[in-house]
């Protein structure tokens, strides 16, 4: 990996960590808005469960050995969040902002995964140059 790619990856890792991290305080303290959202999609204790998973993703994203695992977990959680917005929560007002942040995090995690694709289990073995289609 070139130095530029490494730096880019770290920038997007930090972005994802900041976006997910700043919502943790609301989730763990049981902020009324957060509770309302999770009540609306009928997820009892959802704020704690999702909070713990997001915390894990943040930690994994910051440890050099586990970045791709953190990015995968982050991408999965954000996909779930976006499904929530599409199906039940909608995009009105503050909801729209939250939905856009989820999309931003998903994109960041995917960029990290793309840059570090050679570290991803189940994929790294087949990503040597000679194995990809040539036009």
């Amino acid at each position, binding site marked *: 990996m070139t130095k530029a790619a490494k730096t880019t990856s770290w920038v997007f890792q930090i972005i994802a960590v900041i976006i997910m991290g700043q919502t943790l305080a609301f989730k763990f303290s049981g902020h009324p808005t957060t509770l309302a959202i999770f009540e609306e*999609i*009928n*997820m009892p204790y*959802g704020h704690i469960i999702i909070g713990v998973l997001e915390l894990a993703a943040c930690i994994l994203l910051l440890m050099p050995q586990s970045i791709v695992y953190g990015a*995968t977990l982050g*991408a*999965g959680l954000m*996909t*779930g969040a976006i*499904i*929530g917005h599409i*199906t*039940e929560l909608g995009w009105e007002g503050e909801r729209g902002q939250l939905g856009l942040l989820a999309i931003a995090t998903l994109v960041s995690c995917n960029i990290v995964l793309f840059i570090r694709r050679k570290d991803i289990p*189940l*994929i790294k*073995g*087949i*990503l*040597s140059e*000679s*194995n*990809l*289609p040539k036009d």
Partner: protein
Amino acid sequence: MKSKISIDLHKLSRFVNLFLPILAIIFFLAGLKLSFYYHFLTVSFLFATALNVFYLYLQNGHALLRNFGLLAQGRYMLESVGPELRQYLYASDTEEKPFNRLERAEVYRKSQNIDSASSFGSLHTFDATELKIRHSLFPTPTSELTPYSLTFGEERGIENTHTIRKPYIISAMSYGALGKNAVRALARGAKLADITMNTGEGGYPKYHLMEGCDLIFQLGTAKFGVRNKDGTLNEEKLKEIADKPTIKMIEIKLSQGAKPGKGGLLPKEKISDEIAELRGVSKEHDVVSPAFHSECKDYTSLTQFIKRVQNIANIPVGIKLCIGDLAQFENMIQEFKKQDIFPDWITIDGSEGGTGAAPRAFIDRVGMPLLPALKGANDALNEAGVRNRLKLLASGKLIGPGRQMLAFCLGADAICSARGFMLSLGCIQAIQCGSNACPVGITTHDPKLEHGLDISIKAARVRNYVNNLKHDIDELVAATGCQSINDLSFKHLYVPADSSISPHVPNN
């Protein structure tokens, strides 16, 4: 014949490929109608579908994944744990190569000072086709055995001869092939056991020198540590090393049993900054030594090169080779005789010898196996009437006393072993020597893996291994009715007619 309930893996994989996206949709609907928690499964199956699409349509390096998708990963996953499963569970005690569990267990027991008596009977296939040692009707009492002693260099009458009191030498392993902890544990163990250790061809033996044991400096074909820029011998540097008090002898490596006809090989994964500096090489490429010494182009120049090294270093100088053609070996001996120049010893390395890295075909198919090569060499020296001008050492899977006795009977004066001593350090035969991933920290420079190898505990194991080998050899020599290893000869072997060392089978 196919049974009616057999699973058709082709159909199963098509079924899986179809149902991954369908399941994602089903769980999405469940998430919509039943509980949002179902979306955990929706997301998982979406990701699995994406991965499957990549396998099926976006890569073409792996036909199996391209044809069958995610399910085919099962094959690669199971295959990747195959070596471990076989070693842990399925391989029988006498099955594994190069050393089976029985052979390894004997070394482990000897190095941990555990009694190695076995019960019930031999686990070998037992018939008349194996080499056996002939015991005597009248064994020697062990108290009457002559103590072992072998003095290198006495034939030339040089001042700085080197005497060994136990018939064991730790064979050539460089810092580079081994990590620093392993080198130091072996060197400290050699010191404790009072045996001599070979430095290997890997340049200035910094870590070998640390523990103060007797050393043989190995002069490899690339002449690491004593080379000029053009790869020829730098006499001052060699003199400097030979003058060190613990460097007792010098071995010129002509070839190695695991890769005869090819030079040493150190994969780039294992080249640290320090190794690059000690050898004077780049970190970016595998280090490949030349196949021969540039000074040695024929019998005459080879003999002259031995003389040259003997003149530079005022200590015993020997050669190590794996024999390809016994006729060439005989010609070499004739040239030694003609010029009246002899190395102080010859190490015969069998083609079954070990290595950190070599091409498969060289490991498997090149060179003569130790026993016929050793017998042929000993016979050639005797026929030329010069057996008393030098010592003969043997190496090649000589890790236990039984096989070592065979080598002694075929003419060896002492035994060199590398893997035997690696096993005494705790080698588990993971066969990762070339990848810098040795799980027990022996053939790696990864500090996290080297951490597991405690120098002082492993050094004591090396000492125990040597002492217990010596004990067994003494008992075996006594059983043959001989006074010492020197008295052992071919007639102490039971040799079946179809053996490669049978007198009825031509050696070449």
